[in-house]
């Protein structure tokens, strides 16, 4: 079915006014040799009923939902209050464009302003932007920003940074004369500060740290930021699981200069990886080099408060090749979801959520570590993920658990050759105690 609103009579009247007898005449500026002379080879149209069954067929070929899963690693299963879906599906939020006309976009703009405030409060920074595509490209934008600010060739990134984030950073900086160097980790799973010390020099623009890091271990951000600063570099903090900020100290209070990360855990379903929500915040002094849209407060001609997109001279549509970023369309509707999520949970709710994640994951870690054939890999304190090492072949164990309907976590050997028999296990408030106990007993059986 098409979505055309013209009747044949309308079309006729319109063509008469234009002075043509067929619509084809309107395409006369397209040379014949680049016109398509046949019908597109795509399936015949489906009615609404047929369309829904077609997609239900696709859906039935997904079996993941039948499994008890402990996958995390940058995409976290969390509860979503029903009001998030309810409010974020309103057409007034879903169907407008970027708020270029603030007088008829106050809803979107005020939501962005509230979102920016929430991100500042959580990360302990002065300013935040309206969103970026996802955590990984956010990390890349942060590295580019630090490089613009410091103009030194080196950026240090930890091996304990999410492997996809490392890949995206590498892809983004490749053509801009930035050299990336990787900093190792210790037996605690935290960044190896000796290695950091060795690699830090006066030619370093930024030190990137992820906390909790890819192994789920909480980093000593205060120490890392201090070390970065003493070498004249900026401290860039990446957060892939921002629920942790309900409990853990804000990176801004620990010396971070730029904080960026993934907002998916705030009310956005797993969705096979997207759309997600990149966020970024920084100190006020860096505002001119800050990428992305920003909403700001102002007044209308009658003195009433209103919000507008501001500081647009940083942006591509004004500054073109000298812009701080090429980002234009971002993830506004996902930022709306996060805003509703955070305002619904509120101060105590987010703390409770973080508390439950930490308690359950630690319960799971203890339970699994007691099992025969399983070792806790890193000694550092964790939030809602941890790495275990198995005594038996990991592929065999996985197959055995699959038969029991369990996906025990992510194999991380392909990203870290030294961690061949290791699993990254994520436990959130969505996992019941019995399910954690089940995981432990199935693993023990398989080992």
């Amino acid at each position, binding site marked *: 079915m*098409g*979505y055309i609103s*013209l*009747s044949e009579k309308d079309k006729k009247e319109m063509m008469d*006014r234009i002075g043509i007898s067929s*619509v084809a005449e309107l395409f006369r*500026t397209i040379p014949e040799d680049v*016109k*398509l002379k046949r*019908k*597109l080879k795509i399936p*015949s*149209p489906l009615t609404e009923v047929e*369309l829904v069954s077609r*997609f239900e067929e696709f859906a039935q*070929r*997904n079996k993941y939902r039948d499994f008890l*899963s402990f996958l995390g*690693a940058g995409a976290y299963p969390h509860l979503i*209050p029903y009001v998030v879906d309810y409010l974020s599906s*309103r057409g*007034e*939020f*879903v*169907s407008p464009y970027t*708020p270029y*006309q603030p*007088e*008829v976009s106050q809803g*979107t703009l*005020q939501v962005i302003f509230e979102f920016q*405030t929430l991100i500042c409060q959580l990360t302990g920074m002065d300013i935040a932007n*309206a969103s970026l*595509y996802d955590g990984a490209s956010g990390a890349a934008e942060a590295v580019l920003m630090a490089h613009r600010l410091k103009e030194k060739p080196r950026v240090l990134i930890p091996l304990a940074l999410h492997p996809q984030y490392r890949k995206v950073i590498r*892809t*983004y900086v490749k053509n801009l004369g930035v050299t990336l160097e990787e900093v190792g980790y210790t037996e605690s799973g935290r960044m190896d500060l000796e290695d950091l010390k060795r690699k830090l020099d006066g030619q370093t623009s930024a030190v990137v740290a992820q906390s909790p890091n890819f192994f789920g271990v909480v980093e000593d951000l205060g120490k890392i930021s201090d070390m970065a600063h003493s070498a004249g570099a900026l401290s860039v903090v990446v957060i892939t699981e921002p629920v942790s900020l309900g409990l853990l100290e804000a990176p801004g209070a620990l010396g971070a200069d730029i904080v960026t990360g993934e907002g998916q855990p705030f009310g956005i379903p*797993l*969705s096979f990886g*997207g*759309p997600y929500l990149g966020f970024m915040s920084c100190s006020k002094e860096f505002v001119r080099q800050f990428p992305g*849209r920003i909403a700001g407060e*102002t007044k*209308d*001609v009658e003195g009433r*408060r*209103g919000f507008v997109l501001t500081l647009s001279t940083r942006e591509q549509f004004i500054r073109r090749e000298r*812009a701080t970023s*090429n980002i*234009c*369309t*971002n*993830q*506004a509707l*996902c930022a709306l979801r996060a805003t509703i999520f955070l305002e619904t949970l*509120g101060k105590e709710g987010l703390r409770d959520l973080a508390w*439950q994640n930490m308690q359950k994951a630690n*319960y799971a870690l203890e339970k699994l570590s007691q099992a025969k054939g399983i070792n806790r890999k890193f000694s550092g*304190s964790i939030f809602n993920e941890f790495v275990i090492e198995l005594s038996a072949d990991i592929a065999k164990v996985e197959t055995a658990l699959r038969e029991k309907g369990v*996906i025990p976590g992510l194999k991380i050997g392909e990203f870290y050759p030294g961690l061949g028999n290791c699993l990254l296990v994520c436990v959130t408030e969505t996992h019941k*105690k019995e399910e954690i106990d089940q995981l432990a007993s199935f693993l023990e059986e398989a080992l």
Partner: protein
Amino acid sequence: MIREPLIFEISEKGKRAFSLPELDVPEKKDILKNLPLRKEIMGFPEVSEVEVIRHFTRLSRTNYSVDEGFYPLGSCTMKYNPKINEKVAAILEFISSHPYAPSDLVQGNLEILKTVEELLAEITGMEAFSLQPSAGAQGELLGMMLIRACLEERGNPRSIVLIPDSAHGTNPSSAHICGYRVQEVKSNEKGTIEVDDLARHMTEDVAALMITNPNTLGVFEADIKEIAKIVHSKGGFIYMDGANMNALVGISRPGDMDVDVIHLNLHKTFSTPHGGGGPGAGPVGVKRELEPYLPIPVIEKKEGKYILDYDRPQTVGRVRSFFGNFLVVVKALAYILSLGPQGLKEVAEVAVLNSNYIRKSLENEYHLKYKTPTLHECVFSDKFQKEHDVLNIDIAKRLIDYGLHPPTMSFPLIVQGALMTEPTETESKRDLDLFIDAMKQIARESKENPEVVKSAPHTSYVRRLDETAAARQQILRWEEEGKAEK
């Protein structure tokens, strides 16, 4: 209308809108030792569920949207967003899939991605697609990276990218992030690329020409094949910005125009909602030559199974995590399957008909700098109204009083005082006429009573906002009273 405060201003200690089930594992305090804990999240809101609902419902009512009415924002293709597409994209099996789920458990998702890649290839005449980019600008960046990677392998990445002066601002910005220097190609009096001028600029140091077709004036670059020949003869590539693909679906294919790389905007041509500024999706299509450089993973079908191929030695890497904006891709697929080949062609036909109807109806009242025939959009200017001191921004704001969304004003830069108008195919004649009548009325007002236009809007939730003050004051977040200045 109630003026809705910021949520922080109605927050009161102890209020809650949500509670969690009781913790079912034994609580332990010692796990917190050695961790840097925060006391509280200063200023974080505390409200009830009813307050949340009222807050966002009231805010939503201050937005203008496509669901409410005509939204002729040029180059943004603000067409109707079919509601059924939202429903299919919300199917539980899609939204609950973890992106690290083993491939054999998400065959439906992978089939959707592969199917969309193939459909887009057919629609554009390209040979392979990546669905990873999250929006048009990221697609541009990826497209330029592919070109650079290929040239590097040939021995020289080159240093210049040519971009017409009519281009969208993301083009030069994306080329720059890819390490290129931008050289502008001037448009001729027809509003198109001057072939001779291009030939002069085209050297063996030029990596690519970034072209938008039809361009931002709505004019088809009829010399496209000649242009491609010139660029190719010096070993360069043609990058096409597919933002205006709505004018071409089913009519003409960029692949047949000898384009090497294209990005599409699923949130424009393929009807997925703009969401107040995203999420969108900016798939990139290429010819075979550039396929080896596509980002990882690439989806392959082997022995009836969809698998993820990470073993791509020539890949540029990744521009974001996982597989891109999957749910946006789901909606675009629903759109393509609903329309079919004839329906898609009709999209272009009616979009172009609607645009030409507006152009013809307003050509006496509004100046058209370029007389060349246009396709899906046309760019008026404020030249006639300027004589009465009325600018494009005033006309735009006055349209708000008539209950309509204004056209685009920020570009193309080659038209001063631009009013770039794109109606799309989904609008009724009644809505087109409402716009035409309003524009005519504003043209009259500009002559007879310019003040009423210059002081518009008069009826909106807020009136004209002081954007200069916003940039100067830089109030970019709410702060507790007394804490405004640290």
